[in-house]
């Protein structure tokens, strides 16, 4: 394997050969990774009558914006976009706020029940979310949360609490306790110390938690599919799925992919801008995209 830098002069030539081969393999692999995306973008600009023709058109011969126009106008995608944005923003703010408060309690206090409460959160982390779909649906029904964006928010926050608490507790424990104690000497109460000291110190952790929670909410499908019937409350993933229907022949793939591009671009922008927090979140464990 070429993972070791073959820098020694005797092997310089072999090293250059291996380096080239390495890049060829890596670029070919990367090509396979993004080819489906490029094809999706091409289809989103292809008139519907040319989709699924043979040979396929990788660069549309008669490019059109019709698919985007239709997605924006007839298919009401802007409304679903706003629904998704609203749900994701509110859920993320609430989740990060509540879990950072819990994380602060775990990181800076000793109190009776600390271990038990922590273990209970841990159990919540190990139970797959989809397993809870049925009882959560029954609960949401009793609480009158079906068919509402509020019902999405409540359960998105609940679903992300445990993970964010673990992540943020790790970050908060790494910040020096001395500062917290010094502020306490000066008479600052716990809320002030949490808000003015702990949170600013844990900024990288907050950024990581925010990004992962936002993306998870933005992409969430199973729960929204289950509780949302009202067309006005659909989120983007549910709306896009409805565009694609069930069979293959009647589907207007150009419109589906125009809407998909609109759903995916914000995610890719967020990812590119905040890349280092992604890596941080992954490395601190237990986060799977």
């Amino acid at each position, binding site marked *: 394997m070429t993972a*070791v830098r073959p820098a020694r002069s005797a092997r310089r030539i072999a090293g250059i050969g291996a380096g080239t081969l390495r890049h060829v393999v890596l670029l070919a692999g990367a090509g396979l990774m993004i080819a489906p995306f490029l094809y999706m973008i091409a289809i989103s600009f292809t008139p519907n009558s040319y989709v699924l023709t043979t040979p396929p058109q990788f660069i549309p011969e008669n490019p059109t914006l019709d698919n985007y126009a239709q997605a924006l106008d007839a298919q009401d995608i802007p409304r679903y976009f706003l629904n998704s944005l609203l749900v994701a923003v509110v859920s993320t703010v609430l989740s990060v706020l509540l879990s950072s408060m*819990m994380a602060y309690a775990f990181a800076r206090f000793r109190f009776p029940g600390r271990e038990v409460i922590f273990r209970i959160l841990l159990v919540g982390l190990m139970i*797959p979310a989809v397993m*809870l779909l049925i*009882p959560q649906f*029954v609960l949401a029904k009793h609480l009158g949360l079906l068919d509402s964006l509020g019902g999405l928010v409540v359960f998105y926050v609940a679903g992300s609490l445990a993970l964010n608490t673990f992540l943020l507790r790790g970050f908060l424990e790494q910040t020096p306790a001395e500062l917290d104690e010094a502020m306490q000497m000066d008479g600052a109460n716990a809320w002030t110390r949490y808000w003015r000291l702990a949170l600013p110190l844990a900024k990288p952790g907050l950024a990581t938690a925010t990004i992962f929670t936002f993306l998870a909410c933005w*992409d969430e499908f199973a729960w929204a599919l289950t509780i949302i019937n009202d067309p006005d409350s659909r989120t983007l993933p549910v709306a896009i799925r409805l565009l694609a229907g069930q069979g293959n022949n009647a589907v207007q793939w150009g419109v589906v992919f125009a809407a998909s591009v609109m759903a995916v671009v914000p995610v890719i922008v967020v990812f590119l801008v905040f890349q280092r927090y992604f890596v941080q979140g992954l490395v601190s464990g237990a986060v799977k995209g």
Partner: protein
Amino acid sequence: MSISTLAAGAAADAAAPAPRPRIRRRRPSVTPYLFLFPGFVLFVVTVVYPIVQAVQMSLYDWRIIGSATSEFLGLDNYARALGDEHFWLSFGNTAFYLVATIPPQIVLGLLIALLLHARSPIRPLLRVLYYLPVVTSWVVVSLLFRFLFADQGLINWALGSTGLTGGDTSWLGDRWTGMLAISALGVWKGIGWSMMIFLAALQGVPQPLMEAATVDGANAWQRFRAVTLPAIRAAMAFVTVMLVIGAFNVFISVYLMTGGGPAGRTDVLLTYMYRLAFGDLEFGYGSAIAVILTLIVLVLSLAQLRLFRDRDGVAR
């Protein structure tokens, strides 16, 4: 502001196993409970209670509609699952997905990580390209793959025009080809994630050891076996466990690519559970399947962690 008693303080000391030096011992007060309260109450109501209720529902013929009373069945729902042919078919498909997606994700993810580990001017770009499928919504990529594997889709065109197949495979119209297409999506979407974990783990490979092995004449494969692999064992365990959990949770890609069809032949455990509950309103039986699934996942994860720990010879 703080309410404290000596007794509570003693209880706190007894409950805390090994007090960490960084946390200064305080008199117990209501303050930490106030910080925990809103989040923990929400968690208990919306996560802990449903866990308990899932188990409870699985023991009943659960009625969701109107005032119909639910009949207690004991373990009948579980017995029903064991004798249910479609449960085993879904189980088999889940197992197929597990076997078809996990080894490629580990091997290819590690291979790419090893290739990317060495310095390269285009390394940041490559890392982003490999990671893009990971951050993209499951709904979008599932529909995209349904399109690629359509009868007149790109995959058939590519296979047909290179002469590998007749180009007329009805991928999503048959059990095994359908599972293969679904697995292809799983691998494509997951490689970037395992790569990223391995890439981070490779930072921890001791460089002096690597150089010593090189001086001693170890070839690349020997260095990989003797130095790299032991150093990334923890990451390997983590990736494997997470991928197993992920494989048992496969749902969106199946739901959107084949819908479990044709005639339920590509159902996995979760699509079957979903249809039972929200299609046939069999909430009790659906819950039993969810509980079985959860138990399998928990047992497998614990077993794997133990296995990796034993081989390591170090208690972690």
